[in-house]
């Protein structure tokens, strides 16, 4: 075990796989521009390269290299930058295996940060997870701890399908205990971050620590919230959520995105279909207010769900009935 910041844990996961598998490539903008670059020193310029600001070509090149037998990891920095290449992400990478009748596989990882709500304003602060969640052939990973960041990155690299790896920028420097040796975290297994019998909270990314903080506040009032972190939203471990709801009967979904752009809403739809009998009260969504993220600090804080709103959401779920 080593105590590492989130960002170092991701790198550790990439190193782990590049060391064992020479077919893993790592490239993107504003990396590997000198010989001193960590990954360049370790693996050389054949496998580690800087690219121009050309996301469409970057991701397209990753697809071609993957079809030709490699496992590229593309550094994209911010999830929004994938939007200029959205066709490659949702209508190319996940399509080729299927359209070829299983002849090719497209193992690649698109690494991008998101949700950097600290003054980056309208075009750099989005929470776009839901955009990638419903594409057959595509997997989507959203780690919330340093250990998962390493383990899910390693699993993403070994996966034979395209994977969007979304790490929350506000967690970048959060430290956590990370297993030293080979560490892999399976896809499709949610983690119960806190046990509780009164209400179920589901959250991803930065909303996980916020929800845990809210849960502690609620505990002081004798309310025990179970906090579930899906860790991967495609595949989504609905069973773990349904089991918890079967126990608590109440569900609060926390999401940094605005209404109709959330993972929360999508999970709510699944539970309303498959866990309806367990529900004792309306499913509550604690999500961003309906606006582009504003620059000014108090306004930004007003738009994004905070501990207080999560607590209020839980109380609403507890009050609610049929």
């Amino acid at each position, binding site marked *: 075990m080593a105590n590492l910041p989130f960002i170092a844990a991701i790198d550790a996961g990439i190193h782990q796989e590049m060391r064992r598998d020479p077919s893993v490539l790592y490239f993107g903008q504003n990396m590997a521009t000198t010989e001193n670059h960590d990954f360049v020193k370790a693996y050389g310029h054949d496998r580690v390269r800087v690219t121009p600001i*050309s996301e469409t*070509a970057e991701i*397209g090149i990753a697809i071609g290299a993957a*079809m030709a037998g490699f496992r590229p990891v593309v550094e994209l920095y911010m999830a929004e930058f994938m939007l200029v290449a959205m*066709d490659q992400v949702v209508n190319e990478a996940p399509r080729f*295996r299927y*359209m070829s009748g299983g002849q*090719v596989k497209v193992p690649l990882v698109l690494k991008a940060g998101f949700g950097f709500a600290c003054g980056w304003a309208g075009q750099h602060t989005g929470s776009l997870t839901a955009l990638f969640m419903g594409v*057959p052939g595509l997997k989507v990973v959203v780690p919330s701890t340093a250990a998962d960041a390493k383990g899910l990155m390693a699993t993403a690299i070994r996966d034979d399908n395209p994977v969007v790896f979304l790490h929350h920028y506000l967690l970048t420097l959060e430290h956590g205990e990370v297993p030293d040796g080979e560490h892999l975290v399976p896809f499709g297994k949610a983690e119960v971050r806190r046990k509780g019998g009164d209400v179920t909270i589901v959250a991803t990314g930065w909303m996980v620590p916020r929800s845990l903080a809210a849960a502690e506040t609620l505990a002081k009032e004798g309310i025990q919230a179970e906090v579930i972190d899906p860790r991967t939203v495609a595949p989504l471990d609905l069973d773990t959520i349904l089991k918890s709801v079967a126990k608590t009967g109440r569900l609060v979904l926390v999401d940094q995105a605005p209404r109709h752009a959330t993972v929360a809403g999508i999970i709510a739809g699944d539970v309303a279909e498959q866990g309806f009998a367990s529900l004792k009260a309306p499913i509550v969504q604690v999500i961003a207010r309906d606006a582009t993220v504003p620059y000014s600090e108090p306004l930004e804080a007003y738009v994004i769900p905070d501990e207080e709103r999560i607590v209020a959401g839980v109380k609403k779920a507890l009050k609610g009935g049929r």
Partner: protein
Amino acid sequence: MSVQAPNAERQIWIYTQMLRVREFEQRVKRTFTDHPGVIRGHTHLADGAEASIVGSLAHFKPGDAALATYRCHGYPLVLGSDPKAAMAEIYGRADGLCKGLGGSMHLTDVKRGFLGTSGIVGAGIPHAAGAAWAAQIRKKGEVVFSFFGDGASKQGAFFETLNIASLWKLPAIFVMENNGYNVVTTTAQEDANAAAGEPLSTKAKAFAMPGVTVDGFDPLAVYATVGEAVERARAGKGPTLIESKVYRLSAHGNIIAPPGVPLHYPEHEAITVFGKREEYEAALRGDPVPRFRGILVSSGVLNAAKADEIAAKVGAEMQAAVDFALKSPFPRLESALDHVYA
């Protein structure tokens, strides 16, 4: 660097492949009238581009790769794919190259180095560059052929990719089949170089990459031009942009219509949209397939008898493909859920 002309035997091979592509696609086209409803969606024929396709792929070696667009029937046939499996795919049958999941726009035959085709204009160009990066890492002198249209050179993916390919000296050959049209838009209506009377290969200057324009109706000219580019690429000297001037001898594709409306191939847009029948007929007079046959016969490489023999053989081969595809069963319904994930 100059490429040796193909010997007689190789010239006959080139002609035979051109004819195979033509005969295959004529049957795709005839299927709309002979077997209504058997082909659905949108098909795109390569007639007029056969000399360009074969003259290019004549340089293909095992280990090389090729990627293309929705206009993709010709390449795999030249690379050795079974016409039966290709036709079965276009008919949506279980014996298709892609098990009926891909269809006409997405023929793929990885065993023969035909890696994939994107139906999104320009989107396949970076895929070819990625395969070329793989080849560069492997250091076996393998190259990648990227085929796309003139219209694709107006899509960001084209520019972004060629810059990186040149910068990284990727072993790629970018073959732009300039047939003068993007559906019903002429090149001069959408391309600033064309509007200024400049060749589209001029765009290579934006990437410090060699750019060449060649007569795509002449398989030997294409052979020589692409051959040089392939030598450069194999030698690690980087990519080349080749503008191969061809002409579509059919409409862009069969008509686009919802179910219920019988699909068919209309006349070429030069006639239906622009009323330029003469432009189309001039192109038809230059049809590369009969033209190359004529050249081979007059140069003595081929005699009429041998040529007819080839034609008969190819015709029979492609008719067998149709017969096979018509008999091939549809895939199991549940197979629609196969291959979503690896």
